[in-house]
């Protein structure tokens, strides 16, 4: 069984903490413990609120986020001198209601976060399962691919590709997804290797199940709880990546209300209208925090579970 280089393990895991690699795969019967884990509850609550905001945006937000009113541009929030109750959080440089844009921004962030994390999941889990299950030359090839992927500077390539291909929500999701599957792969591979050698797999082979059947029906369900943990952490990573791309001008383009873009647009008057920058940042922070809390919380529960 070839050992993954310590450094690459570290690389893949360093962004999100590495204990998961050693956890044994646990059956997903931990849901009842969720309620007792404060971090997890907090994360789920915040996530829930943001999802509600995103899904029900047209009903919740006071105005259409694309409605521009030039005579009412750059109004401050209601608690600052000059603000008014018509626009609680003020307006942006084109007179669009800031609160509405923030609410709709949840849609963009969640869409990209989940979208990119899903693509990464698809790629990483598939490669990881193949590598872990088949071993041998396939494992070596996949390891090589992983090493190459880790070596490439992710943000730089993402910037270049999005800019050259043409910025749009779809391209951003694809590019971020294609650059963030390493963590899935490492964990899936390790977990698959552990399961592969268990007895019931050998039994299934003896019965005559095809390899594909085994992978899908026996191994995959056992990876589920681990994958969920990584997925929620990767959502956070994807949201931050999109925010950075949009902030630098090579991600989501106006007039779409991405939180990262809103920060970029507000940056020019950061000294005189700091709320333009602070408010979207708080939202990004909350979303990523929620994703991390959920991920960490699930991992904690699984670690506890596996110690029994």
């Amino acid at each position: 069984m070839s050992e993954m280089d310590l450094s690459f393990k570290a690389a893949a895991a360093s962004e999100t903490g590495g204990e998961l690699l050693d956890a044994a795969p646990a059956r997903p019967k931990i849901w009842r413990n969720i309620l007792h884990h404060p971090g997890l509850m907090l994360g789920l609550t915040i996530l829930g609120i943001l999802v509600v905001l995103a899904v029900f945006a047209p009903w919740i937000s006071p105005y259409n986020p694309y409605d521009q009113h030039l005579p009412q541009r750059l109004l401050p929030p209601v608690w600052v001198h000059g603000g008014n109750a018509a626009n609680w959080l003020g307006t942006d440089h084109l007179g669009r209601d800031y609160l509405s844009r923030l609410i709709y921004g949840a849609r963009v962030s969640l869409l990209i976060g989940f979208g990119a994390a899903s693509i990464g999941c698809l790629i990483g889990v598939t490669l990881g399962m193949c590598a872990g299950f088949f071993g041998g030359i396939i494992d070596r090839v996949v390891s090589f691919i992983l090493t190459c992927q880790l070596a490439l500077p992710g943000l730089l390539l993402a910037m270049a590709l999005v800019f050259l291909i043409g910025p749009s929500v779809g391209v951003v999701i694809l590019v971020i997804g294609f650059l963030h599957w390493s963590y899935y792969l490492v964990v899936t591979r390790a977990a698959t290797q552990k399961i592969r050698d268990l007895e019931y797999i050998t039994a299934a082979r003896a019965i005559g199940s095809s390899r594909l059947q085994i992978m899908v029906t026996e191994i995959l369900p056992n990876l589920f709880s681990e994958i969920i943990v990584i997925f929620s952490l990767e959502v956070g990573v994807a949201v931050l990546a999109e925010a950075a791309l949009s902030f630098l001008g090579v991600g989501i383009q106006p007039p779409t209300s991405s939180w990262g873009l809103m920060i970029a647009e507000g940056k020019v008057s950061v000294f005189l209208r700091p709320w333009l920058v602070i408010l979207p940042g708080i939202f990004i922070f909350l979303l990523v925090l929620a994703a991390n809390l959920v991920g960490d919380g699930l991992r904690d529960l699984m670690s506890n579970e596996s110690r029994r």
Partner: protein
Amino acid sequence: MLRYASKRVVLAILVALAVSFAAFLLLSVATDPASAIAGEGAEPEVIEHIREQLGLNRPLLVQYGSWLLHVFHGDFGTSYYWHQPVGTLILHHLPVTLTLALSAIFVTLIVAIPLGTIAALYPNSLIDRLSLGIAVSAQAMPSFWLALVLIILFGVMIPIFPISGDAHAWNYVLPAIVLGAHSVPAVMRLTRVGVMDVMASDYIRTARAKGFYGYRLLSRQVMRNALLPVVSVLSVQLGYKLGGSVVTETVFAMNGLGRFALQSIVGGDIPTVQMLVVLFAMTFIGLTLLADLLNAWLDPRIRLA
């Protein structure tokens, strides 16, 4: 050790080749350098002539080979935008980024290691939970937002640090904090786990039995074993920092490689972008190779696996 080392080096070289080809491929097909050189208003014949001159009509593999050959001779191409050799430009911007990366790692270390150690020595205490909380928060913050908040705080409200440029040492304080903050959680966790693992070992149990506790259990051996994973992570982190400094350098207007990369991308300067991607990748590969070898040397179990 030698066998292990040579295996690792060969692997590193293979990865380097694959990565450089991937970068070359991706970026070459995305744009047409000939029209950039030809300039505005050039007729199609002129553009075609330049394509011939640059050899852009040859198969991609041949172009890659020729490019590789040039790189080995130290010729990194000429930038369309700056009208200068790419190598010179990169050397020019490197010091700022290097200084920033090292300062950021320094910040990460002085925050993460003590916090992680304390958290491990007094598990589940208030400090442990608090530092975990800080860690999780720091990771969730977009770095450019943190940068802007720091600019508002320390540039205007309580102005003690310069908020732009890279002329003096003071200029690096805020950017280093921003860049370093993102890795604090990971390093802290690793330190914590490492220390905890060591604490559970026989050596420590003996010491405990003799009545030592808390910080007095810390010794060189404990720290050395605990910090092993941290060392490898750090070298990887250095690689990440080089690539991840784009945002920080942009917000703080520092003239480093990161911002230079953004300028080149937005300016459509493909040769420079290619070289930068390859350069960052090589640095990462080199550093991880170093870390592998270092680990193998420190921990014999690894090279025998």
